[in-house]
């Protein structure tokens, strides 16, 4: 029996297009692979591969200064790399939309992912981010739309957390 086709990355891409996002900063993650591919193939989107996630917080601030909307894609481990740079978004009220693929929770094989994964929620809340957590495929698009409204409607910070259960477990032995 074939697994049902995964379509939520395409819905996220369509949400970003509807929102008019023009810059996509990312540190690659397997859970974001399809969305990254879609963005890279889009001539109207500047895709910016980052060496560390905090670069994306600064990129998004610069984009907004110049009149463009940006999004930052990363894995949960990258949240820790962003903490001080989030002060930029908070102090200046820069809109910041983060889409974060979760590790260290459901069916995690690698224990090194657990410490950061377990504190993503409280850390982001301390940084004034509104949290939207998607567990089921059919709720991803609606939550993404709400995050977009929160961020660009009022120059705020939001994180869409894509749970490990949604993404599926990483295959370690092939």
């Amino acid at each position, binding site marked *: 029996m074939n697994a049902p086709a995964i379509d939520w990355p395409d819905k996220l891409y369509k949400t970003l297009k509807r929102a008019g996002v*023009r810059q996509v900063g990312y540190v690659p993650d397997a859970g974001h692979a399809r969305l990254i591919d879609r963005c890279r193939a889009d001539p109207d989107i500047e895709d910016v591969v980052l060496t560390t996630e905090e*670069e994306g917080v600064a990129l998004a601030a610069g984009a*907004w200064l*110049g009149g463009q909307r940006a999004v930052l894609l990363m894995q949960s481990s990258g949240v820790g790399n962003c903490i001080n740079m989030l002060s930029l978004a908070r102090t*200046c*009220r820069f809109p910041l939309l983060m889409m974060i693929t979760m590790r260290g929770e459901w069916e995690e094989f690698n224990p090194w992912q657990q410490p950061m994964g377990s504190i993503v929620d409280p850390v982001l809340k301390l940084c004034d981010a509104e949290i939207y957590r998607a567990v089921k495929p059919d709720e991803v698009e609606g939550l993404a739309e709400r995050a977009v409204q929160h961020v660009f409607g009022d120059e705020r910070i939001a994180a869409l957390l894509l749970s490990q259960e949604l993404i599926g477990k990483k295959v370690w032995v092939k």
Partner: protein
Amino acid sequence: MSGHANGLERRAAMATLLADRKDDLLVVPGLGSTTWDLAAAGDNDRNFYLWGAMGGAAMIGLGLALAQPDKRVAVITGDGEMLMGMGSLATIGIKQPANLAVIVFDNGVYGETGMQPSHTHQGGVDLLGVARGCGFTDCLDVADEAGLAALAARLSSLNGPLFARVLIEASDPPRVLPERDGTVLKNRFRAAIGLKA
């Protein structure tokens, strides 16, 4: 005092770089001394002063340069701030924005915190070599007035990402403090380039 010998005086260097500034030049300094230097050169709504976000100046410049391809963006920061965001040179290098210049006022010390030696001190890390290795097409080593004048001229005709290291003497001139409310700085900058504040 430690730091580079025979370097340029920072306030005069900033003034020379921006002497013929046009409205289509947008400037992002780094936190600390280069923000004070930029304020001392004359306030301008097209400056986005940083009082924090250490390591982020070059990436703010990249986002801005990509969003405003018809304008030119100059990030003018210090060696310590650039060292913290050194990965951003790699990110900019592969992105190749035609309208972005990253200029480092390199005095070899952390001036805001008591003149402790930085990694570039006395022949340490060569930021120009780093930028070259990251793919910056134009790399200028500026150590005198003629070099400054040449760099200033290049700011009005960028063609590919430019990196310049400006050798600066280790000095600590009186601070000139600009506006520090981030939302005010953001809104006035956006209004100045025709966006909704």
